[in-house]
């Protein structure tokens, strides 16, 4: 489209400088240029209208409660956390001396949970928020992505450069996760704030443990298991209330 306008203007400039056409041809060309300029103005108006529509969509998305998180899936990720803790208790009795295995267990659990939540979020948002689905998903991801990114980068830095304080990881993960929950609260039921507070509290307790006890399977299972079940319950209850 831009090339098309550029071509119109380039050729009109060439024509004006050449001055080698018979007058009738020049008149005809001026007429064509007049319509070309009008076309450009019309395109500008249409593009402005399209950007206005996008702006309204964005505003609607920002003022709509996000319903893309499914209670059942969130509950399932809580159960998954308990299952991962069970696996750790069974096969990794001394996590402090097998940090790579400990990290594998919980990173795989987190990735599985993220995949489950993401897949359902995509489908639910398309169904529930038709018309603004893409915008809603973008807003939801924008709210949580900084926390996930921070958690991942903190893990990499601690594993690589400060392996002596790896016992802090569960606490830091929970604190960073709480920040993600807090930033998502604006578009979720108000009670979800309590879940953010829960993750913050458990994260601080984990750090307060001050040693390898923080790597206990229950230091991950209780915060994430209870937290995810709690948020699932809140979403289920608020969904029911809204239907009523």
């Amino acid at each position, binding site marked *: 489209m831009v090339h098309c306008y550029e071509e119109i203007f380039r*050729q009109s400039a060439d024509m004006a400088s050449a001055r080698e056409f018979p007058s009738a041809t020049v008149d005809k060309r001026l007429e*064509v240029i007049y319509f070309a300029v009008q*076309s450009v103005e019309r395109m500008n108006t249409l593009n402005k209208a*399209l950007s206005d529509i996008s702006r309204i969509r964005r505003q609607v998305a*920002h003022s709509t409660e996000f319903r893309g998180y499914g209670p059942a899936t969130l509950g399932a990720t809580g159960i998954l956390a308990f299952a991962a803790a069970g696996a750790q208790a069974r096969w990794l009795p001394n996590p402090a001396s097998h940090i790579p295995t400990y990290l594998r267990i919980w990173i795989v659990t987190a990735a599985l949970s993220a995949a489950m939540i993401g897949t359902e979020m995509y489908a639910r948002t398309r169904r529930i928020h038709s018309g603004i689905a893409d915008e809603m998903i973008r807003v939801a991801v924008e709210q949580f992505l900084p926390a996930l990114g921070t958690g991942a980068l903190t893990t990499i830095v601690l594993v690589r450069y400060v392996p002596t304080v790896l016992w802090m990881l569960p606490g830091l993960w929970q604190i960073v996760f709480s920040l993600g929950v807090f930033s998502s609260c604006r578009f979720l039921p108000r009670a979800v704030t309590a879940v953010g507070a829960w993750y913050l509290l458990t994260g601080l307790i984990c750090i307060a443990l001050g040693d390898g006890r923080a790597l206990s399977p229950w230091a991950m299972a209780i915060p994430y298991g209870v937290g995810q079940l709690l948020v699932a319950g809140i979403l289920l209850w608020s969904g029911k209330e809204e239907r009523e």
Partner: protein
Amino acid sequence: MKTTAPGSEGRFAYEGLDRVIHERARLSVLTSLITHRKGLTFGELKELCALTDGNLNRHLRVLEKGEMVEIVKKFDRNRPQTVCRITASGRARYMEYLSTLEQVVRDAATVTEERSAGLAHRLAPSQT
């Protein structure tokens, strides 16, 4: 939104352009309400849409009849207050309207773009 293949019958029917919404003042009222989740008071709505009391009342009645807004009368600090909110069906119809409107503008843009391309072709030196 109903979409049909380009060139097919009803391509430009734009059935999603709801007659109730397709009026400047009502579009303005609905856009204000859809971007305020908790609703707006009559006074706030009047100010946002630059409408008179009578005009706003009339348009709100049309929207209420179409089940697109709900009007709740309540008391705030012993003063009567009218709060307007968009309903779930109003929200859905507004989004459908917006999608259709976007399609109308896109179709117009396509036509304008094709015309511009035609003009560029006519201006080519080989054509003179």
